[in-house]
C-alpha cells in the first residue's frame, strides 16, 4: 500500500473521529431522579467490619447497622431514643442493665433479631479487641434472659446506656455475619438490619446503597431508594458537583465559598456542633512549658477568633474547657481564656521572662490536616509577640504521634491535636488526654494530677447524672487552672446541600453521619 495513501486515510480518520467527539455534548444534561441521593463525601472506608470500625466509615455505618439505643441530638426532650431495644433499665448501683428488644426485626440476610444475636454481637467485638472495643471493657457477663430480653452485668458501674448507643463498637450483627471473619467483610459485605443495604463498593471511589424493603420502621412517606456515595476529597470539586446538581449533598467545600454558599439560589448550608475540637498541647516536662505562668500566657496570647475565621471560615466556637459544646459534661460557666496580649505579657514577666525566652520552641501539627495548617502561622506570630520563638514543623500524623510517644524530655514542645469522642461521654476524652500515663500515649501534655484521675473516675462510675456533671466540671476546672493544653475551638461542621434536599438531621453524637432514612427530595 502506498505510503501517501496510508497517511491520507489516517489523517481523514483522525479528523472525522475528532469532529464526532467534539460535537458530542458533555453528558451532564440529565438530571438526577428524585429517589436517588448522590452524596459527595471525603470519607473513605477503612474497614467494613462492624466490630472493628472506628474511623471515617462510621459516617456510613449507622445507615446499615443499628444499635440498641440512640443518643438524641442536643436539645431533645429525652437523652436517648429506642433503637433495637424498646425499653431498658439500670439497677440502682449501675452495674446491671437490662434491655427489652423490639420484635419482628429482620436483618438484611433474612435472619431475625433475638437476645442471643445481641449477646453474640457484643461478644464478637469484645473478642476481636479491635477498633472501639475498649468501650466494652466494663462488661463482665452478658445474659440472655429470654428471646427478647438481654442483660449486661458490669464489673464496675458505668454509663452503659451511652456505651450501648456508641457510634462505634456497639452495632448489632446478624447471626450469619457474627461468625464471619474480617476478610469476609472487607470484600464489601455487611450483616446489618438498618434501612440501607450495601450494594456495591469501589474503594476510595464510590459506594452504592440500596433500600432494605423489610426495614422495621417501614417505608411510608418519601424516602430515597438508592444512595450513591462518591468519594471526593477535593473541596473545589465537591463545590462544583453540588452547584451543578450532580451531587445533592457534600461535606467539604472550600472555606471561602462556604461562607456564601447559602446565598446561592440552588444550595444551602446547615451548620451544627460536631463534638470535634482542636487543642494545642504543651509539653509540661520541658522548658518553657514546665512553668504554669508561661502556659497561661500562651492561653491568653492565642488569637482564637482569627484562627476560627481563617481555619474554619468562622464555623467554630472558642472552646470552653475540653468537653465540646453540646456534649454531656460541657459546662458553659467554666473560665475561658480570652485573647488578651497584655495579660499574656504580664504573665511572661511574672514568670521571669519579660523580654521573652531565647530557646526556640518546636510546634508540630499533622500535614494532612488543612485546618491545623491554616492556623499555624497565626500561632507562631502570636507567640512571637510575647517573646516565644516558634519553629513550625508539620509532620505526618504518625510521625508526630511517634515523637510524642517517645521521651518527653526530647519530644516537641507543642503539638496540635484534633479530637473527637468515641462515644457520647466525656470520660474517654478526659481520661485519654490527661490521665497520668506510664508510657506516653494520648496524653500529649504529659500532665500528671492524681486528684484529676480520681475525679473523672468517680464521675464515670456514678449513675446519678447531676453528680457526674458536677464532678466533670470540677475536673475540667483543674485542667483550665493548670493550662497544660490550650483549648482552641469546637468545630461546627457544615453540611452543604441543594435546597430540594430535606430532612437532614444533625446529631453530633454520631459525628457527621447523614441519616438517609429521614431525607427526601422535594
Amino acid at each position, binding site marked *: 500500500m502506498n505510503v501517501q495513501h496510508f497517511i491520507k486515510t489516517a489523517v481523514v480518520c483522525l479528523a472525522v473521529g475528532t469532529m464526532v467527539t467534539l460535537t458530542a455534548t458533555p453528558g451532564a444534561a440529565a438530571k438526577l431522579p428524585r429517589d436517588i441521593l448522590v452524596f459527595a463525601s471525603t470519607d473513605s472506608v477503612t474497614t467494613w467490619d462492624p466490630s472493628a470500625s472506628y474511623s471515617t466509615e462510621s459516617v456510613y455505618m449507622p445507615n446499615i447497622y443499628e444499635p440498641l439505643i440512640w443518643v438524641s441530638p442536643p436539645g431533645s426532650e429525652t437523652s436517648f431514643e429506642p433503637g433495637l431495644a424498646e425499653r431498658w433499665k439500670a439497677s440502682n448501683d449501675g452495674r446491671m442493665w437490662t434491655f427489652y428488644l423490639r420484635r419482628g426485626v429482620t436483618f438484611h440476610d433474612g435472619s431475625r433479631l433475638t437476645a442471643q444475636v445481641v449477646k453474640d454481637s457484643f461478644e464478637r467485638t469484645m473478642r476481636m479487641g479491635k477498633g472501639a472495643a475498649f468501650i466494652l471493657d466494663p462488661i463482665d457477663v452478658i445474659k440472655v434472659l429470654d428471646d427478647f430480653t438481654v442483660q449486661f452485668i458490669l464489673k464496675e458501674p458505668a454509663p452503659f446506656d451511652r456505651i450501648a448507643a456508641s457510634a462505634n463498637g456497639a452495632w448489632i450483627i446478624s447471626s450469619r455475619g457474627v461468625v464471619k471473619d474480617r476478610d469476609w467483610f472487607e470484600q464489601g459485605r455487611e450483616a446489618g438490619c438498618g434501612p440501607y443495604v450495601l450494594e456495591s463498593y469501589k474503594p476510595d471511589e464510590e459506594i452504592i446503597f440500596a433500600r432494605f424493603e423489610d426495614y422495621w420502621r417501614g417505608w411510608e412517606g418519601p424516602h430515597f431508594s438508592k444512595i450513591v456515595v462518591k468519594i471526593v476529597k477535593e*473541596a*473545589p470539586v465537591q*463545590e*462544583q458537583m453540588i452547584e451543578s446538581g450532580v451531587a445533592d449533598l457534600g461535606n467539604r467545600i*472550600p*472555606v*471561602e*465559598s462556604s461562607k456564601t454558599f447559602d446565598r446561592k439560589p440552588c444550595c444551602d448550608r446547615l451548620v451544627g456542633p460536631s463534638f470535634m475540637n482542636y487543642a494545642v498541647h504543651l509539653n509540661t516536662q520541658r522548658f518553657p512549658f514546665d512553668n504554669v505562668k508561661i502556659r497561661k500566657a500562651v492561653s491568653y496570647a492565642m488569637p482564637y477568633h*482569627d484562627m476560627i*475565621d*481563617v481555619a474554619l471560615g468562622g464555623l467554630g466556637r472558642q472552646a470552653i474547657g475540653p468537653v465540646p459544646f453540646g456534649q454531656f459534661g460541657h459546662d458553659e460557666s467554666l473560665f475561658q481564656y480570652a485573647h488578651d496580649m497584655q495579660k499574656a505579657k504580664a504573665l511572661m514577666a511574672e514568670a521571669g521572662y519579660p523580654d521573652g525566652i531565647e530557646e526556640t520552641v518546636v510546634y508540630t501539627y499533622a*500535614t494532612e490536616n*488543612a485546618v491545623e*495548617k*491554616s492556623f*499555624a*502561622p*497565626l500561632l*507562631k*506570630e502570636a507567640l512571637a509577640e510575647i517573646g516565644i520563638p516558634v519553629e*513550625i*514543623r*508539620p*509532620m*505526618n500524623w504518625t*510521625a508526630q504521634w511517634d515523637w510524642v510517644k517517645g521521651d518527653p524530655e526530647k519530644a516537641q514542645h507543642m503539638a496540635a491535636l484534633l479530637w473527637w469522642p468515641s462515644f457520647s461521654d466525656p470520660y474517654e476524652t478526659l481520661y485519654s488526654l490527661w490521665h497520668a500515663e506510664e508510657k506516653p500515649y494520648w496524653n500529649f501534655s504529659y500532665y500528671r494530677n492524681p486528684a484529676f484521675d480520681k475525679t473523672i473516675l468517680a464521675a464515670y462510675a456514678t449513675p446519678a447524672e447531676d453528680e457526674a456533671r458536677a464532678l466533670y466540671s470540677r475536673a475540667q476546672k483543674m485542667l483550665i487552672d493548670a493550662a497544660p493544653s490550650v483549648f482552641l475551638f469546637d468545630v461546627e461542621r457544615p453540611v452543604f446541600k441543594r435546597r430540594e434536599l430535606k430532612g437532614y438531621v444533625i446529631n453530633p453524637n454520631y459525628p457527621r453521619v447523614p441519616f438517609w432514612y429521614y431525607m427526601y427530595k422535594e
Partner: protein
Amino acid sequence: MKKDAPHHRPHGRARELQRSLDLIRRNPLTLFGLFILLMLTLTALLAPLAAPYPQQGKGLSNLDERLEPPSFKHLMGTDDLGRDIFSRVIFGARISLKAAVAVVLIVVGIGVPLGLIAGYAGGKTDDLIMRFADMILAFPSLLLAVAIVASLGPSLFNALIAVSLPWWPWYTRLMRSQVISIKEMPFVESAAAVGASHWRIMFRHILPNCLSPIIVQATVDMGYIILAIAGLGFLGLGTQPPTADWGVMVSDGREFFLNQWWISTFSGGAIFITVLAFNLVGDGIREALDPKIRWRFQKT
C-alpha cells in the same frame, strides 16, 4: 565529529571561546533566557529591596486583606492570609535559586568523579559503578524523593537531599561516556607515556576536556531541579510554612483556585518562566559549544 583535541594552545582556546560567545550573542532566544536569569538572580539577591511588602514575603500575615484580586496595591493579589503574592514570589526566587545551586553542586560533586573513575578504570569498577547508577535510575525518582523526605521529615534541606540522590547517576553516565571517548586519544597516551599518575591523568588531562557537556547539562538541569523542588513543595514535602516557596504556593492556592485563581497562577508561572529561561540558556550554550554534535536524547 569531535573537537580537535591535541593542540591546546591558549591561542586556540581563546578563539573557541570568542566564537562561542558570538554564537550566544546572536541567538535571540538565548539572550532572552539570559535576561530572565539575570532578573531572577537580581531579585533573589535583592529580595528585601525588590519586594513591596518584604515582611509578608517572609510570612507575616495580613488578615485584613485576605484573598484580594490583583490590583495596583497588590500586583499579584493576596493569599488566604492576606500576604502579597508578588513579594512572596520574589522571596520564593531566593529559595529556588539557592536550592538549585546547592543540588547542582552536590549532584556534580558526586556524579562527575564517579563517572570519571568508572570511565577511566573500566572493567569491574566500571561495571559496579554503572550497575549501581542504573539501579537508582530505574527507580521512579519522584517516589524515591518522597520516601526520602518522608523518612527524614519534610524540610527544604531534606528535599534537597531527596532531589540530589536520584539525580547524580545522570552525570555519572554522561561523564563516563565522555571519558571513554577521550581516553583513547593520543594526548592521553602521551601523558601516560611520560609517566603521569592515574589521578593526574584523570584530573588534569581528561576532566577539563569533558566539561562542556557537563556544563550544558547542569545549566538545563538547574531549571528542572527547581521544578522538582517545587513539585515536592506542592506535595507538602519541602519548605515549610511560612517560608515562601513556589511549589507550596501553587498547592496552597489549589483550595481556592477556581475563584481566586491568582495564587496558583502567578507562583506556577514563576516556575515556568524560570525553567524556560534555564532551558533556553542551556540550549544556547550547547549550540555555541558544539553546534555540530547531534543533540541526543539523554534524559527526559
